[in-house]
């Protein structure tokens, strides 16, 4: 059933890297921003307040990771809608490729790119980041993969139905950015008004951030099984829905 998956995945990675700005925009730019913001704040460190240091220690790395995942989702939504609009999906439909295989290939591409960006950030962080940290890199990478994978399935659901590439970015953004605002990264969940708090509780990104922050700070996985469960649930629901509503053209 997944005939052609690895070949398609490898091919899509190559094609993506051939895009002008492809590698730079998605891999190098986030690392660059992460390092520069860190250095800018780090340069004032002696005079910085405790919240600023807290942000540097946990907030910024997690925020950067979330942004990498989200840019992957937006890029996934855009690519699939371009493929649909350009008749590429139409052409693929007339082969033994299944929609699940095409979607799976693109998810794998985004996961691979997320992992590559992550690796670069760890390397750059070791060398240039103002605060030395002892972070469970492997565990955090796992947490990031699970989060990205789950958030990507939302992207997949959006990509399954967005009619044209012109709508892809704004619709994707309209769905994703409110999640960023409410995910607990900027404003602690407890200080949100009850109504917004309730909304935040059903947004998948909230669980992703909770998982990422926890693992980053060295908490045990057992303390975050609820987050993992929520993320897997989101993945299952979105995948099932997108298989139902997937449009080839």
């Amino acid at each position, binding site marked *: 059933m997944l*005939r052609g998956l690895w070949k398609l995945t490898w*091919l899509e990675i190559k*094609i993506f890297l051939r895009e002008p700005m492809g590698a730079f925009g998605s891999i190098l730019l986030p690392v660059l921003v992460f390092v520069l913001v860190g250095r800018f704040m780090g340069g004032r460190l002696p005079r910085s307040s405790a919240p600023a240091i807290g942000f540097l220690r946990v907030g910024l790395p997690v925020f950067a990771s979330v942004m990498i995942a989200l840019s992957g989702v937006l890029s996934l939504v855009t690519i699939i809608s371009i493929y649909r609009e350009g008749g*590429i999906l139409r*052409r693929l439909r007339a*082969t*033994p490729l299944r929609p699940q295989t095409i979607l799976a290939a693109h998810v794998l591409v985004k996961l691979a790119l997320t992992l590559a960006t992550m690796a670069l950030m760890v390397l750059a962080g070791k060398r240039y980041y103002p605060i030395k940290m002892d972070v469970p890199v492997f565990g955090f990478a796992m947490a990031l993969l699970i989060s990205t994978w789950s958030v990507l399935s939302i992207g997949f659901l959006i990509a399954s139905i967005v009619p044209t590439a012109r709508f892809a970015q704004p619709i994707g953004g309209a769905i994703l950015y409110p999640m960023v605002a409410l995910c607990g990264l900027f404003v602690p969940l407890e200080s949100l008004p009850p109504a917004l708090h309730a909304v935040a509780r059903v947004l998948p990104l909230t669980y992703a951030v909770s998982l990422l922050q926890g693992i980053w700070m060295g908490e045990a996985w057992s303390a975050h099984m609820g987050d993992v469960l929520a993320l897997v649930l989101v993945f299952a629901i979105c995948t099932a829905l997108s298989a139902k509503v997937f449009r080839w053209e």
Partner: protein
Amino acid sequence: MGMSGTPRPVIEVSGIRKTYGRTVAVSEVSFEVSEGEIFGLIGPNGAGKTTTMECVEGVRRPDRGRISILGLDPFRDVYRLQNRIGVQLQQAQLQKRIKVWEAVDLWASLYTKTVDAGRLVEQLGLSGKRNAWFMTLSGGQKQRLFIALALINDPEVVFLDELTTGLDPQSRRAIWELVRGIRDRGKTVFMTTHLMEEAERLCDRVAIIEHGKIIEIGTPGDLVRRHCPERTVLLATGDALAEERLRTIPSVESVTRTDSQFTLHGKGEDFVTEVIQCLSENRIRVTDFRTVLPNLEDVFLKLTGRSIRD
């Protein structure tokens, strides 16, 4: 041509109907395609050609009617069918920056049985473009790549939808040659076109479709004979007795003359022969002689009352 004995039908379509909302795309469409022939579905844009073809390919499900292809139900057995057919779609694209060899390689990985990819690329004249990105190919090269992709699994039936639309005459002729080659290797070709010249040069049999209904089926020659028996001869002569002599030919219906230019209208297979016989028996010296024969375009005009180009 692989057409020994009675060719068995490879595709059987009976009474299919497909609607989109309140628009009826095709209705009561029935036809058969025999093994080893090039069968053309011809008609103007929007007549229902692509919808019909997509129903046979298993991409769309007709609301009513029955389709059998290679003994399979195209919609129910679509995945089994895809291994045995090759498809070229109208207005399809590939990833802009996919290389020619990568596309062929990907397609080859999707099927259980494939032909030699390198040979195929060479046969279609794409060897020099193996490493070129799809976006840099010309229209003709893109179509040749799509033909290569349609042939990669050594299919029994090949579907070609508006294959040469938008191509210059030279590329068009080259593609026709390729399509004849496909048939000569024993494959069945089911194609659509709105170009009557293409249908006439390429197809063994055609079905004319208009407003979602098939109005005629037959060989191009048959259709012309049946619906447009009119023939015209244009000739030039200074012979003073020519007009009188030409009028005595039984199959000639009218003779009009402007100075030394004659236009003769008549009907039937023997018309041109009789004109030539008359000229030779009466030793009439002509300085110009041309025949104007009707074609599928005239058949379409006759059957529908409008030109296919409208």
